[in-house]
């Protein structure tokens, strides 16, 4: 079946695939995950704050982001952010935003909606008595969040956060619509240049599968190690 396949195309291009493509994919995944978790946690705190307006704003944001296809948001931001930037700083021309910055902003904002739902569940999973005890000791809201509630919430939710990050890793392949050279983009470029589409896309699939599968295994092992004894 593979008799007329030529897998040497992989050997010839692996440096480009991994050092350019995969490096970009991993960088984008890592930065967007960190940014998404931070922003998502703030959104979750807004949503649970019980203050006027803030919870509704947070809820609207999350529902809005979750009702849009990611590809559309990526497009949208790429073409819209320069104009929004222009409008904000009052420049004469649309400001220049590179494809990388644009995709990073997009993924951070988009993933924050998902991460915020995870963190909301995480914060709600901490018994009310914990924040009462923190308050009773004189800790302020932020001290209690930072030292008592969030560390426990993160630990409880770490497996889910990492699983969502694996999904994010796969989703980053959608940056192809901005012609960015991520791993899939690199594979696709080589495939078209050398006319070896099937081989390259097979190889890309195997790599994505291997990375995600190993990552899930690690998450499961981690899950057992970080569990808090209650």
């Amino acid at each position, binding site marked *: 079946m593979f008799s007329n396949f030529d897998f040497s195309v992989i050997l010839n291009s692996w440096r480009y695939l991994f050092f350019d493509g995969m490096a970009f994919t991993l960088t984008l995944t890592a930065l967007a995950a960190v940014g998404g978790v931070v922003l998502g946690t703030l959104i979750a705190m807004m949503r649970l704050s019980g203050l006027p307006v803030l919870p509704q704003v947070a809820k609207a944001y999350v529902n809005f982001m979750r009702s849009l296809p990611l590809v559309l948001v990526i497009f949208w931001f790429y073409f819209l952010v320069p104009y929004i930037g222009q409008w904000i700083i009052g420049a004469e021309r649309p400001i220049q935003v590179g494809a990388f910055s644009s995709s990073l902003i997009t993924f951070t904002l988009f993933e924050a909606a998902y991460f915020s739902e995870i963190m909301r569940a995480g914060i709600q999973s901490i018994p009310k008595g914990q924040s009462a*005890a923190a308050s009773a000791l*004189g800790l302020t809201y932020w001290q209690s969040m930072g030292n008592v509630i969030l560390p426990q919430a993160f630990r409880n939710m770490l497996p889910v956060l990492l699983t969502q990050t694996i999904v994010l890793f796969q989703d980053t392949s959608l940056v192809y619509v901005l012609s960015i050279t991520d791993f899939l983009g690199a594979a696709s470029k080589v495939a078209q240049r050398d006319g070896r589409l099937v081989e390259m896309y097979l190889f890309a699939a195997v790599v994505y599968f291997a990375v995600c599968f190993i990552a899930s295994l690690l998450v499961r092992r981690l899950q057992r190690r970080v569990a808090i004894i209650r």
Partner: protein
Amino acid sequence: MTSSAMPPVSPVPEPQAAVDAAPGTGPVGTLLTECPPVAATTGPMIAIDNVSKWYGDFQVLTNCTTSVTKGEVVVVCGPSGSGKSTLIKCVNALEPFQKGQITVDGTKIADKKTNLPKLRSRVGMVFQHFELFPHLSITDNLSLAQRKVLGRGKAEAEAKGLALLERVGLKAHAHKFPGQLSGGQQQRVAIARALAMNPIVMLFDEPTSALDPEMVGEVLDVMVELAREGMTMMVVTHEMGFARKVANRVIFMDKGEIVEDAQKEEFFGSPRSERAQTFLSRILSH
């Protein structure tokens, strides 16, 4: 009920005398190693004035008025759902109330200008379910608030925590996590954690209700010792043995009202209200 390790029951010291003996000069090994900072007010330590509270339409507290003077041990009892836990949680503003005023050491807690975290840091609280922080070691549980709220250094906070752990007999467990301790041990750590803040008053919200019967004694021992050292205490509990031993006054609540507020001898000897009589006969009959 309380274990045989306790010295024979001595008459309850006069509150004022007990306080005079405790500060600073206290013998080595007392729970109160430092003089608690007390503002120079002549009023009661806790004054609860006509407090009412509603959950929606349901009234949980109705015109509650009482006070706790310095060095006094007041036990709050009553049937479940009578509002005793709610009342004690109002004292350090963990529960808001809609009417009335509570003054702690001269500070009005319902006043918008009151710095609640600062006030709470001076009021120790022990919860029914201990509420130790499960992700922190015992040492870190004891030093967290000392460092973040009182601004103590790491070494100082840990030394203070260790000294208190030794007093509650748990020094050997300092490196462990709460989940590795029994309920009674966790509650003793929780008491030590509250004491580490040098509180001017201690609130106990059913501290032994979640414990296995054989662990109640060790927690009550610590509380009795604390009371004998002159700590001002407000204790919600069903442990009438504890009340008989160390309380100065007993408050009986029913259906959100303070039905009886009497000296210990009077309460146990001849309760005035019928409801208190019924309650006592039920709780003391077995």
